[in-house]
């Protein structure tokens, strides 16, 4: 008996060493952690339960038969984050460069199947050179098996990808289909074809970092949701992020007791909107002063800054927040911001997370580039997302809500549950000046007449009461009581039941 136990221990020890101490040291020298270190840091101490530790590849070509390492380049299993169940995989760059073999993929699939069955989130840590070339098409098959499960898991359990090393070629499509991607600066990159191929085909010279680094994807392409400084920050950020998410679409949002007074009023919000309508202000101040403990987890902070998205808590329950940001492009909607917010709204709706929308939007961004790149269909994504969402929706208009953009931003007409406006709100087809120039076109040459008409239009429509008189606004609230009103609203909406007509799935304007 004793020797069998010893055998187990020595096999475990061998598996834990992955590709060997030299490769572990090399990984550390690059400022990267090993696959197992990442898992252990991510999960609660001693909670990780590994599965598939002894799996080996089945390749016999190119001399691979004699070169086998237990685990086959990926660590899989389950554990807890603050006691809550999560399934993880972590690719091991020290083993065959983390390359994906058939068996490697099978391990990931097994773990994902389990997560979908029990209803627990999946966190994948990507650090892989790509397909295991020696296995050829078997490896490609493996990728597709993972992709299929990403699709099936989507909307059932939250999926988070941490990109902590290379992730290129077909490999990018698994993270692409997960809900959130966090990248590590300077040590991770994602692209479909790398700089060498790019140079051959298009003659463009570009570095890996410029083509697909964390900064690129979190500011230019919008592929990544966050860029973290290093492995440790990425992992701790993920732990913090995880606390906002429900475990699956069958569960309610998590509740974590808060010390923040639910009826706290913030008098300073009464002066947040500047008296000059063209002066910007930072909508994040409103967000921070609304959520519990000013604890707001912003997603995609570096991309399409004209809209802010992220998670917070109200009375300890998670909420999703969408807000126009007057500091960037006057808070208008454009292609990037519509796509960014639409995907976020759909995530919240899929996982029963109530949506709070703060509106200060002057309209859609005009321009040839916008039109030619499809602002029509892209803007419609956000409209569609809000329109189909059945979770509690509370909207607060702080200043401008002009034109079609008013309709889009979780208006009453899109089944908004509670639509509030501050006294500074202006709900109108457009700004007074533009409106007057259309209605009184014949007076355009007459500056005095235009000024007078503009003042009249301003007086009549630049307030929330016209919209309120039509029932589009449920109540005009004092800015300082915004948190209190949202708290009360969410309490009353907790039992909300609303179902869309049965359909196989919708056909949103992708």
């Amino acid at each position, binding site marked *: 008996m004793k020797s069998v136990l010893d055998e187990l221990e020595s096999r475990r020890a061998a598996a834990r060493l992955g590709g060997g101490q030299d490769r572990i040291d090399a990984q*550390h020298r*690059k*400022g*990267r*952690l090993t696959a197992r*270190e990442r898992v*252990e*840091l991510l999960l*609660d*101490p*001693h*909670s990780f339960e590994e599965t598939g530790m002894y799996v080996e590849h089945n390749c016999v070509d190119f001399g691979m038969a004699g070169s086998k390492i237990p685990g086959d380049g990926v660590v899989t299993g389950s554990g*807890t*984050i*603050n*006691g*809550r*169940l999560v399934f993880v995989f972590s690719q091991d760059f020290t083993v065959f460069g983390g390359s994906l073999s058939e068996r490697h993929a099978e391990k990931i699939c097994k773990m994902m199947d389990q997560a979908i069955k029990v209803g627990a989130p999946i966190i994948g840590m990507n650090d892989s050179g790509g397909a295991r070339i020696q296995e050829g098409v078997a490896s490609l098959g493996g990728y597709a098996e993972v992709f299929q499960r990403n699709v099936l898991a989507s909307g059932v359990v939250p999926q988070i990808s941490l990109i902590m090393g290379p992730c290129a070629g077909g490999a990018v499509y698994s993270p692409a289909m997960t809900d959130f991607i966090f990248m590590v*600066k*300077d040590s991770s990159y994602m692209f479909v074809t790398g700089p060498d191929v790019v140079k051959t085909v298009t003659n463009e010279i570009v570095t890996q970092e410029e083509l697909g680094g964390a900064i690129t994807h979190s500011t230019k392409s919008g592929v990544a949701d966050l860029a*973290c*400084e*290093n*492995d*440790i*920050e990425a992992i*701790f*950020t993920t732990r913090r992020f995880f*606390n906002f998410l*429900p*475990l699956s679409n069958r*569960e309610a949002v*998590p*509740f*974590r*007791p*808060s*010390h*923040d007074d639910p009826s706290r009023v*913030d*008098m*300073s*919000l*009464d*002066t*947040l909107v500047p*008296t000059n309508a063209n002066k910007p*202000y*930072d909508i994040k*101040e409103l967000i921070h002063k609304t959520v*519990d*403990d*000013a*604890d707001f987890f912003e997603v995609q902070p570096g991309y399409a800054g004209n809209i802010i998205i992220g998670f917070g808590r109200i009375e300890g329950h998670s909420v999703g927040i969408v807000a126009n940001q007057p500091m960037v492009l006057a808070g208008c909607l454009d292609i990037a911001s519509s796509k960014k917010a639409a995907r976020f709204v759909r995530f919240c709706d899929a996982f029963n997370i109530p949506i709070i929308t703060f509106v200060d939007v002057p309209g859609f961004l005009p321009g040839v580039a916008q039109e030619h790149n499809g602002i029509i269909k892209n803007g419609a994504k956000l409209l569609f997302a809000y329109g189909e969402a059945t979770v509690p929706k509370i909207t607060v208009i702080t200043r401008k809500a002009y034109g079609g953009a008013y309709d889009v931003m979780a208006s009453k007409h899109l089944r908004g549950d509670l639509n509030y406006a501050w006294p500074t709100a202006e709900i109108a087809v457009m700004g007074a000046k533009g409106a007057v120039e259309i209605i009184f076109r014949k007076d355009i040459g007459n500056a005095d007449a235009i000024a007078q008409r503009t003042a009249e239009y301003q007086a009549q429509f630049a307030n929330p009461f016209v919209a309120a008189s039509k029932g589009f606004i449920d109540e005009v609230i004092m800015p300082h009581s915004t948190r209190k009103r949202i708290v009360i609203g969410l309490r009353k909406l907790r039992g909300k039941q609303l179902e869309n007509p049965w359909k196989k799935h919708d056909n949103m304007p992708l």
Partner: protein
Amino acid sequence: MFNKILIANRGEIACRIIKTARAMGIKTVAVYSDADATALHVEMADEAVHLGPSPAAQSYLLGEKIIEACKATGAEAVHPGYGFLSERAWFAKALDDAHITFIGPPANAIAAMGDKIESKKLAIKAGVSVVPGYVGEIADDIEAVKIAKDIGYPVMIKASAGGGGKGMRVAYTETEVREGFKGARHEAIASFGDDRIFIEKFVEEPRHIEIQLIGDKHDNIMYLGERECSIQRRHQKVIEEAPSPFVTPDMRRAMGEQAVQLAKAVGYYSAGTVEFIAGKNREFYFLEMNTRLQVEHPVTELVTGYDLVELMIRAAAGEKFSFTQSDIKLNGWAMESRIYAEDPYRGFLPSIGRLVRYQQPKEFSSANETVRVDSGVVEGSEISMFYDPMIAKLVSHATSRHAAIDLQIKALDEYHIQGISHNGHFVSAVMQHEKFRSGTFTTAFIAEEYPDGFHGNPTSSESKQKLMAAAAVMKVLTIRRESLIDGQLNGHDAIFDDNWVVTLDKMQTSVKVMELSNEFTVKAEAWQHKIITGWKVGSPQFKALIDNEALTVEVDYKSVDVKLSFRGASHTISVQTPFAALLAGYMVEKIKPDMSNYLLCPMPGLVVSIDVTVGEKVETGQTLAVVEAMKMENILRAQKPATVKEILVDKGQSLALDSIILTFE
């Protein structure tokens, strides 16, 4: 007594005057500009009248409009505060003509004393000793250079109409006189609408000591002791105290009597201040007389027990004071810090914007201790580029100088301000500085002790330990709160043991955190501290009893770490499990990109001039551009010899912090 008065000012001083008026049962009228439409002084007053656009010249300096406002509201008197119209004789006269009482000295005294050249002549006549200098108007920079030569370097160049540090320069060379004269004149026009300049001998290693006067309209004029105002930065007072650690009773009497003599010579009444420069042998020279309430008047109020605003109002109403010089006693010690909207870590550059968060020290008064905060802002107030960057005055009073200093240090820790930068850390550092505590400083203190700027108060190892202990307790409370989340697996509570590694300024310390009936003990190999706290996770201030001493630490949450500010310095601290701390050792330190080939805009402001052209070779110290912010022109100089490659901004453009102005090759 008046029924209603108007306060022709803004900010903290307007609020301070309203408080006293209200206590006296007098109704108040505030005035405001566009930028101040929602300001605190407007809210505090019984009535408010809009004056005009934000620039002072179009609002607070419009005497006619203020008189109209008095008539419209029925205000019988005007308190001008300090700055703005407080020392404009024409305004006092105009009020008089309109049969409105000016709460201040007689117009002729303002005229005589408010002008530095005139006042100097008067002082000489009254037998007051004065600093050698040129009395008269100076036409241009050529004449300025000639005069400077006659007096002998170094010289001081000043705006005749100026107060505080505005339009004031010290010159050691001919070039500096020329540059300083032009600059001073430019600022004098911009700030005071008066371009007269005068030059005098610059007394080196001086102390700035001033005498507070108070008088009624019945020939009672008395001095309320002195104030020490030597802690100045670029001639702008930062810390004031009363009494002065330098002044002896004899010196006090001599200065006080001279001041009274001067005041009597012009038939003075109301509050006024005679400023002196004192040399190391306790000789003193008359500098100027300020015919108004001073910013730093609260320190005098706390040591004498008199409310100067109340006395000014009573004097204006014609009341006779019931006390005489012999009744005036100095009690204890008072310290005042001016809290400015500026960034001490970035060369004290002005910082404007919205006070996204604003919490100030708690005011209280017990038998031996008083903390008073004179502020004109609340959370949500806007610090605009149009006015003085001072947001508040923190005043402490105790039985001795050291006790008042220590009380001040503790109170400074209670500031929590976000949205703008402020000098709280810097004044705290000065309060803790040995030379300041010893009382042996001059007006050169800041320039001498902080020659390379301010980089945070050097933190004692004792303070560092306490911060590490506080961070460890915060970590334990944070994970404890996190573990309250619902949806956990049975028997899978996240279990962390008592061992933590605290990293402060890259130094790792292993600690053990234990709790026994609400008292935490944080134990390292070399130290241990006991902490009792009611801190709630997420709160921006960690208030605790650390080893039985009540302390406040400001908390700024970063993604993984926490930035704690305490006693004039900030430290980024991380608390990790021993395992995480080990792994943290593998992380590569990121090198900050080299920006030395760029000239970045050091503060939000307006480009006044670009003084170089593309391709120009510049020398160290050469002026590259001038950026104006908060009425101050900031000259941006070359840090090294270089060639200008590209100029990216135009004159008149308004720039954000860190905008690239130009690049070097």
